[in-house]
């Protein structure tokens, strides 16, 4: 039986990198006595796969990982037990059963993610018009650094939605293993266009709101693909 866990990461936990978050949850599973399955072999490890790792410095309301269970545990009970052993800044939001097929898990199903870019200092604001002008372009060319080279790519098709929400900027962008657009890259292109002096890395912090998969043409949060275990 497979389960999907949704969690929030906030406060000082944003300084904990992805590999350490994995280690953290492995230990949390044991503390909460969740009946998790192990791989076979001489040094067994927990069957656990994370979707769309979050970078250091970012907070999130919608992080996910999937596990394999050896026995049943009710959703409510699992959420309660996990939250009893969480550090401040980590909160388990849901625990649902997901289909058994292999391709239902992990990074492969991620299609999009929502982010907020929050200005650290609100004096110099990006306006609604700035965003409209930005989105009205057919092409937004940015230099994307890969491990081997730099290449110019058009990110416009990957920005699905973008708008002002108070002082912050909301965006829904493509995410996952085929196309993964980082919110910092979008902001840096936007600031360049507006001629702002602000720096996308230094003057904004980023918060992920949700990760989405596609279901019948619509984007749905990852845990909407699962069902509550009672």
């Amino acid at each position, binding site marked *: 039986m497979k389960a999907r866990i949704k969690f929030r990461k906030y*406060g*000082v936990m944003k300084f*904990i990198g992805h590999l350490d978050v994995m280690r953290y949850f492995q*230990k*949390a*599973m044991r*503390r909460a006595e969740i009946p998790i399955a192990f791989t076979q072999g001489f040094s067994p490890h927990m069957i656990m796969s994370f979707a769309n790792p979050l970078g250091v410095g970012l907070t999130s309301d919608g992080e996910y990982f999937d596990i394999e269970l050896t026995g049943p545990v009710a959703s409510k009970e699992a959420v309660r037990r996990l939250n009893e*052993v969480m*550090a401040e800044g980590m909160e388990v939001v849901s625990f649902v059963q997901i289909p058994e097929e292999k391709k239902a898990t992990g990074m492969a199903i991620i299609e999009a993610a929502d982010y907020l870019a929050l200005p650290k200092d609100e004096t110099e604001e990006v306006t609604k018009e700035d965003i409209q002008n930005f989105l009205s372009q057919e092409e937004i060319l940015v230099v994307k650094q890969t491990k081997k080279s730099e290449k110019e790519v058009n990110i416009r098709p990957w920005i699905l939605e973008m708008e002002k929400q108070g002082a912050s900027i909301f965006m829904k962008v493509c995410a996952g293993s085929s196309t993964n657009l980082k919110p910092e890259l979008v902001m840096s292109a936007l600031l360049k266009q507006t001629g702002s002096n602000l720096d996308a890395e230094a003057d904004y*912090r980023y918060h992920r709101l949700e990760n989405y998969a596609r279901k019948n043409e619509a984007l749905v949060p990852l845990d909407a693909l699962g069902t509550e275990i009672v």
Partner: protein
Amino acid sequence: MRKLALSDEILLKIEKPARYIGNEINSVMKDKSQVDIRFAMCFPDVYEIGESHLGMKILYDMFNRRDDTWCERVYSPWTDLDRIMREEHIPMFALESQDPVREFDFLGITIQYEMCYTNILQVLDLSGIPLFSKDRTEEDPIVIGGGPCAVNPEPLADFFDLFYIGEGETVYDELLDAYKENKKKNGTRKEFLEMAAEIEGIYVPQFYDAEYHEDGTLKSFEPNNPHAKRTIKKQVVMDLSAVPYPTKPVVPFIKVTQDRVVLEIQRGCIRGCRFCQAGMIYRPTREKDLETLKQYAYEMLKNTGHEEISLSSLSSSDYSQLKELVTFLIEEFKGKGINISLPSLRIDSFSLDVMGKVQDIKKSSLTFAPEAGSQRMRNVINKGLTEEMILDGASKAFEGGWNKVKLYFMLGLPGETEEDMKEIPRLADRVARKYYEIPKDQRNGKCQITFSTSFFIPKPFTPFQWAEMFTQEDYIHRAHVVNQEMKEQLNRKSLKYNWHEADVTVLEGVFARGDRRTGKVLLEAYRLGCLYDSWSDEFDNEKWMQAFDNTGVDLEFYTMRKRDLDELFPWDFIDVGVSKSFLKREWERAMKGEVTPNCRERCSACGAMCYQGGVCFEGKN
């Protein structure tokens, strides 16, 4: 939500920000307005090292059991953050509250090795606490040191207000109560130090004066305050099973050196190796009760979620119920995906059997610590391990499927001859020969014998405390003799030799047996920029040599001199239980190559019996 001492900008540009944010599972948060005593407990090295240390965990847990005390952790900031803190004048802070250390009542520093001494000055300096005890005011925390290096606290005497000599579980409550009492009646810092000086095991360095002979050796060491005791008695817990143990240790977010549950099974060692300080200063050997340990194993795995458990002690094979304990751990936890990490065990059929159960034989290696290559030298150091035992153990292991062996040796032992050095690679070769005695079709390729040497450093309270050291060049020469001889061996292609650097050895030797005058070298080295000296990438020998030059302290006085049997040592005012006359007897026996039996074979009247328990009274109740 807590406010961090460091800004997001800083935390995102330094290595491993998780070292500095606290908030770990099982870290203890209290309301600072509701406690009387705030204790900052420091391990003067980087987080991953300090957070792995059992002694820190024991004291943290013990202090926090007191409702009136909040103990928090402090580690050395790594060099990247160190630079930023100096530039931006950010004071050293404790992990839990993130409050500046200078606001605390106590700064406790555990002193585990000599090469962390400059980091002690770093922590004081970054905290804004005057480096010298004499310059501190009523506003400064009481700076207290403890741990194995505190058995010769003299190189650090000027920098500490107090030293706690021995195991923390005995008189800390008394000390904290005295502090509270003094605070309540608005007593001064000096009044508290005088109260502390009367507590057994507590040493207040400023209440003593040292005088020296013309040749530089110590002439006298006398109290200058009526509250100060002439001798400081090392503190020892007699009922190890009855004292509190940290069953809810902090679980770090980042991978630390000891990322596992640690069960302490015993303290002390019955063996009496003559080079080994731990084997002397933790006497008498005391064991923890098996049922208590089983209970701790359950609780600690549940409270931490760790996937590995290990045992901690000196010479674990001597723990009388080891078989029962290890069998229990394997049967109870192996099936639950918990790794059992075994300590180095004497190689026999039992240890090979359990190792086969918990390790992948193809990947793991077996470790022997003969410490010396020749039987003559093993007798000198009283290492009760014969060549026959080593070769038998290796044979058994090879038959069991292992093909990797690690051997540990020391070079520069007292009276070492070239022949003794050459016996090191020869012994490694003889181990390899055992492997190739197995018929070819039954063995698993080549064997790999890795042997390493470290340089021997004489330590206080050991029979070798009188021994002379050698120059750096001489040490390197010794390593070359070993390396040359290795190349002559039949199975040289199966041997691999590693040796340690010699410059750190010499320095460690100075501070291990240093007196108060060596403190100024430390301070000068720190001022010249020395820090993290136990990290080979950070260590800068030139700066250290400059520090000796600048202060006019003669390095060789501390290392090259063979001490006279009647010399008064800087650490002689401490009574560790083991008597100086016993150590002298052992030193003389060593020179004659005479072996002394271990505590369970026959009592050698070392003096530790004065503690009225442990192995000294086994089977006598």
